[in-house]
């Protein structure tokens, strides 16, 4: 009998600890209130009055990165366009919401009256297409995807992405200008064409500025990528970005570029700097990302989705929706104009004035077209040709980059 009792309590304790562990691992969204007071009657918005658009986000809206940039862009639209309402479901990923698929989240948003749906992760491509096929009357934007380009998307889907390649080139340049060790590290998310082309862009920017402004040969620049496996940390599933960042620092890399949605690289570099090390970081995605480590932040390349979302919300409301695959560049005359530039770069407090001037010179060359870093000859890691000598890579070649470039250390393709 005692044995039974013991086993029984063992079971209850184990279950309890499992439940508690599950609760503990939930990343909290903080207490950001839902920006809407949606009434609960389902479907059919009262004709024409209010245009509701909804967003499905892969991570939390306050991640200081990719998802926050999307969330704030939606707020921008609400501010600028009268008569629109914004609703969203965030943290739609198998770790945070194991039994919610993107189709379900979209369904809920449409149920609340959304007539335009934005999904913000490459992982949502298939689910977005399925939901779009089921709701031909609703407009869809799959951000960062390319299913319209490949012809696999239903006609009510558009793709939208920013030419972050430029932002990453600028980031790479800032890193190369600052490093003393000549060792740059890139905290990579998962491996796909998008993340490969962004690593390559960072490397190209870094190599150019290393050779041009530092006057050092490319062989003396170490550039290493470690992929954690997803856009953000999922305990027990991905590599821990905090640990990866610390490994970089311990291996003597003195600038860490982040390619993930969250800010671990900056936070860890800041800690190391406070402990007396000379380490810098360049976060990613969100204009305000430097705030989590001003002292070590060289700057941040960020997405400014607001203007494009505003344009597309107006397009959808006017009923002029058409399929399109868009890859929007920066406004070179004013990178940081919140109303026109999709891609921006904010210089961080840690960037020296001298280097800031060189960086401006680099940006000016990109802006006037006198410098195109995707000019051949460029080689992949395995020695095969990415861009032949004398040619410039076209959009499709860049979009579908199949390997990291020669000179980069790290896993290139699966």
């Amino acid at each position, binding site marked *: 009998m005692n044995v039974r009792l013991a086993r029984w309590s063992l079971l209850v304790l*184990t279950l309890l600890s499992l*439940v508690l562990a599950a609760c503990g691992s939930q990343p909290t969204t903080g207490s950001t209130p*839902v920006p809407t007071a949606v009434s609960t009657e*389902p479907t059919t918005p009262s004709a024409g009055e209010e245009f509701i658009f909804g967003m499905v986000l892969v991570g939390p809206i306050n991640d200081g990165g990719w998802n926050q940039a999307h969330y704030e862009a939606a707020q921008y639209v609400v501010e600028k366009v009268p008569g629109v309402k914004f609703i969203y479901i965030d943290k739609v990923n198998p770790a945070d919401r194991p039994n919610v698929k993107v189709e379900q989240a979209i369904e809920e948003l449409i149920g609340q009256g959304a007539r335009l749906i934005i999904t913000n992760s490459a992982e949502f491509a298939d689910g977005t297409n399925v939901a779009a096929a089921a709701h031909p009357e609703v407009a869809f934007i799959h951000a960062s995807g390319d299913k319209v380009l490949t012809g696999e998307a239903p006609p009510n889907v558009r793709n939208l992405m920013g030419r972050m390649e430029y932002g990453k080139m600028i980031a790479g340049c800032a890193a190369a200008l600052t490093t003393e060790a000549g060792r740059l590290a890139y905290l990579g998310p998962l491996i796909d064409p998008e993340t490969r082309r962004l690593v390559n862009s960072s490397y190209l920017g870094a190599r150019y500025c290393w050779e041009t402004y530092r006057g050092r040969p490319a062989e003396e620049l170490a550039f290493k990528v470690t992929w954690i496996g997803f856009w953000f940390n999922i305990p027990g599933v991905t590599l821990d970005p905090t640990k990866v960042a610390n490994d970089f620092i311990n291996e003597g890399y003195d600038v860490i570029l982040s390619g993930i949605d969250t800010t671990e690289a900056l936070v860890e570099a800041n800690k190391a700097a406070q402990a007396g090390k000379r380490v810098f970081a360049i976060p990613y995605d969100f204009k305000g990302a430097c705030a989590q480590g001003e002292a070590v932040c060289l700057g941040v390349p960020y997405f400014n989705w607001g203007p494009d979302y505003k344009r597309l919300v107006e397009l959808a409301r006017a009923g002029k929706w058409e399929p399109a695959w868009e890859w929007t560049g920066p406004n070179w005359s004013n990178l940081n104009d919140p109303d026109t530039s999709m891609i921006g770069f904010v210089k961080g407090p840690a960037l020296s004035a001298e280097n800031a001037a060189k960086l401006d010179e680099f940006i000016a060359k990109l802006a006037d077209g006198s410098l195109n870093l995707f000019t051949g000859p460029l080689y992949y890691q395995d020695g095969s040709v990415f861009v032949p000598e004398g040619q410039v890579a076209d959009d499709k070649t860049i979009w579908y980059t199949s390997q990291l470039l020669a000179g980069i250390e790290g896993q290139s393709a699966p």
Partner: protein
Amino acid sequence: MKRVAVLIQPLLALVAAFVLTTLALLSTGVSPLEAYRLIIFGAFSTPVRLSDMIMLAAPLLLCAVGLSITFTGGLYNLGVEGQMIIGAIAAMVPLRLWPDWPPLLLWLMAALSGAVGGALWALLIGVLRRYAGVSEIFAGLGMNFLAGGLALYMVLGPWRRQTSASLSGTDLLPRELWLPTIDRLRLAPAAPVIAVLALAIVWWALTQTRWGLEVRAVGLNPAASERLGIATARRMAETLAACGALAGIAGMLQVVAVHHALIPNISSGIGLLGLLVALLSRADPRWLLPIVVAFAAFTVGSIQLPLTLGIDSAIAGVLQGALVLFALATRARQ
């Protein structure tokens, strides 16, 4: 007197669970009535939500049915989650090896392969228990981690997408290999049919056959059963294998009917939820289906909570967990 107690105890647990959840809801400042309306009836409000609920209930019922066998046999199979994962991986094997074969044949092979995979994985727990003296609770938990690691390895390694390495999962299966699905509803009718069929078979086996009688005897008192000539160890192994097979089929359904790919979190906590169902039902087959439907409905209904009330959908988990805890507590007084 006994009859009254049988009715009062679950009622007491129900009330206590709702009081606790209500307190949690009040602390967030939302109307508990509105929240309960969504949690309890939300899943029945539209045909799509209803079918989402059914597609969650199907694997959940399979796991709960499997667990009711091991509970009857006196074993706590916490490894059910891992058995589901191994079932999903095993089910992928024929689908990836011979995608051109007739779909019907492939589904049968996937189900068989999933069931065998889950059963073998479960038997390992039996082996550890019998020959290494490891409690099946801990053996099961440990093997869940192992299975999860294996799924990760398959997704990132041999079965990764063509040009990428992402933890989001393998490439989608070819459309013809999806279990036939009503697109508008995302409902694969075969899934609930399989689950209910499994419930019927297990119910019959446990209550109407000599094998079921022996399993029940082993569950009540293994030592006495052994003395009466029942092959106790064998029966225990059989219950584990049966549970593992059903969990494996649940994993197979996750692959061919829900996710249409192998994802790292393919079991999605359904096995553990099944454990709660089995505990709450006291492994009584009559209660499995209603509790499964209720739990699946809570989970699906709560998806609306963040949208409409601005609170986290985890509150459904609080309600489910509280129900089980209080049910256990009231029972412990016996």
